[in-house]
């Protein structure tokens, strides 16, 4: 029974790195795992020997990578020991575990580090030793990730191999799993350990123990408390003991990630619960060749008829066996695009960014030469042109030998190593005649040297070329100085975005009152005697603006307040409830239009004749010596319509409260 830990350690661009790179030390002479060790591919084999390198080689063989890549991984999985242990000369390519446990190993004064092996050194508690080991493991994995992402696959292999070595050692040198169930880390703590191991948590698993090892006194821990967890006596990768567990794993590649599946190879127990491993967001998730454009609005990616941008990403395929010498990117532009507006943006590939001038490409093609020296002894000639007849936009990248100014003869010389990527960028405007709802699709094609062209995904945008419409709601002809202005609108396509409300004061030119507001009403503070006109200009979500206006859509005049005859408006009041908390008498006053015509506000209730000592707590002010209240949010009363306002009286002497109400319409501010 072999339960796997799926450790989703994502190594971006790792796929592209698993190729036969020029720096590989085992080029043509490197041997496949099966060739070297005679093991079948995969990890289902019975491991007669359990070398770090051997295990790693077998796992790597499942990736179907070139032999030299597999060997590279294995080498560095073993190189940890090579540097830290005394290894016979004959073991350079076949390090055996038995040397791992010979007298004098690890090297007492060598580069041995307990953390590289999840060992517990003298005076180090289990938790400290574990944290040290996790720190090393994470550092190696992160370094590998960085190396792959930076186009240094060979370096990435070394870090990956060292990380895999440490991973094997964790399971071998801890009590995570043990033939003796009573000494095995409790099942409830095993996920805690895995979470810690792969960076999901820093909670130390209770009762986790690591093997003890003192390189200056290798047997110091063999007695008493340390006997059980001494390196020699307990390490499960010591095949000489009866209960050893070869720690093995499987590796799998996707376009952008490396999946590490850890397992204990023994069939002596289901010691590892099936826990998901960590997922690390790749620093780059680009497909080898990709296309991106304006994100637009909504699922349809609505855009206006303004500038639209596109990017094309190209990458040397991970399975390539050599750098690309020549790359051609072509993009047949949609007929709804205005080719005369096309302008190039940045052109990039490893360590190079070229910025073409911001002039339409239709005017003249773009040509540049990038000098990659001294890092790489190459020139790269870049051409970009637009065929305005066919609508085909083309970029070409050609590696040149600086000496001959011709393509290099060396097939391994090229500007784009396997796994490396580049990009081109351009902007273009849809034709102004394009109608709303038109879908503009764009697909590019990338060609590497003599390989077949590869199409990028298609990017789609939908055009919204219809401006919105809006208007300000009609206002009463006369109004108080503080009044509410409302507006509304509609749009075909993406929908309304904002409004700009213009106002004219006494016939003057319209000026913006509110700019690009998403509100649909607001309060305007006018002056008595002034006449105000308003109109609105809407903008939709892609930036289409409503046509300009010159005339007011709503006009009103702020009038001086005047009393409303009692024959036109009635006033009633509720009883007054006394509050001991606020020490006020609380009630409400209701006004009702009892006339047959609309009465325009704002409305003020003036409290004339209040007894001495009685005050309106929530008064809006005083008018002709009496306090008044403004009826809120009521600009007019239709016949029969009423409005109510709360009122609080302060009445320290508890006198009977009464008053004669006078209602004013218009502004008394």
């Amino acid at each position, binding site marked *: 029974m072999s339960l796997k830990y799926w450790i989703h350690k994502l190594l971006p661009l790792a796929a592209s790195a698993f190729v036969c790179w020029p720096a590989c030390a085992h080029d043509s002479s490197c041997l496949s795992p099966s060739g070297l060790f005679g093991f079948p591919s995969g990890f289902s084999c019975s491991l007669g020997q359990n070398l770090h390198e051997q295990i790693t080689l077998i796992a790597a063989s499942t990736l179907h990578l070139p032999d030299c890549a597999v060997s590279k991984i294995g080498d560095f999985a073993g190189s940890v020991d090579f540097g830290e242990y005394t290894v016979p000369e004959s073991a350079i390519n076949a390090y055996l575990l038995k040397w791992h446990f010979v007298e004098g190993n690890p090297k007492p004064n060598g580069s041995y580090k307990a953390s590289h092996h999840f060992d517990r050194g003298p005076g180090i508690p289990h938790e400290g030793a574990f944290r040290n080991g996790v720190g090393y493991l994470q550092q190696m994995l992160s370094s590998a990730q960085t190396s792959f992402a930076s186009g240094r696959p060979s370096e990435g292999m070394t870090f990956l191999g060292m990380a895999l070595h440490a991973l094997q050692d964790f399971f071998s040198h801890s009590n995570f799993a043990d033939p003796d169930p009573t000494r095995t880390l409790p099942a409830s703590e095993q996920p805690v350990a895995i979470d810690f191991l792969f960076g999901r948590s820093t909670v130390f698993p209770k009762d986790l123990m690591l093997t003890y090892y003192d390189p200056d006194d290798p047997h110091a821990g063999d007695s008493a408390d340390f006997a059980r967890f001494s390196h020699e006596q307990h390490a499960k990768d010591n095949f000489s003991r009866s209960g050893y567990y070869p720690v093995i794993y499987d590796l799998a590649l996707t376009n952008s990630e490396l999946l590490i599946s850890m397992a204990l190879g023994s069939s002596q127990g289901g010691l590892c619960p099936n826990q998901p491993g960590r997922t690390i967001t790749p620093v780059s998730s680009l497909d080898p060749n990709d296309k991106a454009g304006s994100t637009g609005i909504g699922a349809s990616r609505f855009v206006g008829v303004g500038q639209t941008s596109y990017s094309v990403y190209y990458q040397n395929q991970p399975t390539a066996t050599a750098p690309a010498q020549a790359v051609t990117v072509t993009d047949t532009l949609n007929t709804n695009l205005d080719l005369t507006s096309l302008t190039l943006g940045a052109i990039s590939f490893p360590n190079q960014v070229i910025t073409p001038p911001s002039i339409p490409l239709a005017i003249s093609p773009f040509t540049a030469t990038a000098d990659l020296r001294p890092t790489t002894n190459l020139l790269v000639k870049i051409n970009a042109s637009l065929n305005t007849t066919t609508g085909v936009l083309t970029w070409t990248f050609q590696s040149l030998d600086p000496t001959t100014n011709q393509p290099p003869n060396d097939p391994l010389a090229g500007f784009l190593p396997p796994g490396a990527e580049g990009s081109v960028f351009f902007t273009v405007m849809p034709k102004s005649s394009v109608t709303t709802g038109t879908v503009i699709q764009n697909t590019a094609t990338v060609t590497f040297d003599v390989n077949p062209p590869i199409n990028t995904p298609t990017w789609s945008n939908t055009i919204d070329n219809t401006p919105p419409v809006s208007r300000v709601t009609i206002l009463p002809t006369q109004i108080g100085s503080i009044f509410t202005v409302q507006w509304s609108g509609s749009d075909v396509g993406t929908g309304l975005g904002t409004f700009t409300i213009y106002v004219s004061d006494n016939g003057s030119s319209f000026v913006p009152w509110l700019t690009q507001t998403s509100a649909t009403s607001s309060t305007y503070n006018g002056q008595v005697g002034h006449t105000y006109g308003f109109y609105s200009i809407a903008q939709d979500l892609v930036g289409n603006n409503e046509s300009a206006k010159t005339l007011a859509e709503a006009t009103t005049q702020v009038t001086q307040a005047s009393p409303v005859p009692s024959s036109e408006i009635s006033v*009633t*009041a509720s*009883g007054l409830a*006394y509050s*001991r908390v606020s020490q006020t008498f609380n009630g409400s006053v209701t006004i009702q239009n009892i006339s047959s015509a609309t009465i325009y506000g704002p409305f003020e209730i003036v409290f004339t004749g209040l007894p001495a000592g009685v005050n309106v707590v929530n008064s809006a002010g005083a008018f002709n010596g009496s306090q008044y209240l403004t009826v809120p949010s009521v600009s007019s009363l239709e016949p029969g319509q009423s409005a109510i306002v709360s009122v609080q009286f302060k009445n320290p002497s508890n006198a009977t409260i009464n008053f004669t109400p006078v209602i004013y319409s218009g502004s008394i501010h």
Partner: protein
Amino acid sequence: MSTRWTLFTAFLLVGSSASAGPITYDVTVDTSSILSTAGSLDFNFNPGPLVSQAASLQILGFSSDGTLAGSPAFTGDVSGALPATLTFDNGTGFNDYFDGFTFGSTLSLQVSLYGPALSSPDGTSTSGSTFAFSMFSDAAGTVPALTSDTMNGFAFTADVNLDGTTTVANFSSQTSVAPETGAVPEPDGILLLGTAIAFGTIRQLGRRR
């Protein structure tokens, strides 16, 4: 009880009584959350600031496992004393009854509104009258209890409207205010009923002859 439900009930308008006539509300308060608190109760029934028609109110059937404390304070047209019946008239601007009270686990009473403003609205008055009931967790009546109306401290109010109807606003999730379902004949009604019975009896007796 969830906050949402508390808010909902706190501002629930119990509703308007549609019948233009005397109306009685059964009031029950769950005071268990302030059990044994030495607090106070306040009742007031006041006219409005314009012209109010005459109206009266009685507090009936006061019952609680709590304890009335001290002497009540009266202001205006108020007579009686709890736990016996309290009677308020709206003849003056401020009619108030305030009494100390050590809360038990429950409190119940009836509020009966009656008088011309309810039984025969004159159509010319311009102010109603309003009853307010408040509970406090202090004897001085400054710290409101069992209410969401922290500004004024009312547990509930009952307005007598100009058309003789009443409107209750309940700010207390612990307080139930329900119109009494069993109709109690008013004196005028009893008189009419008695007259009818007497008339029928005489008529029967006459037929037997």
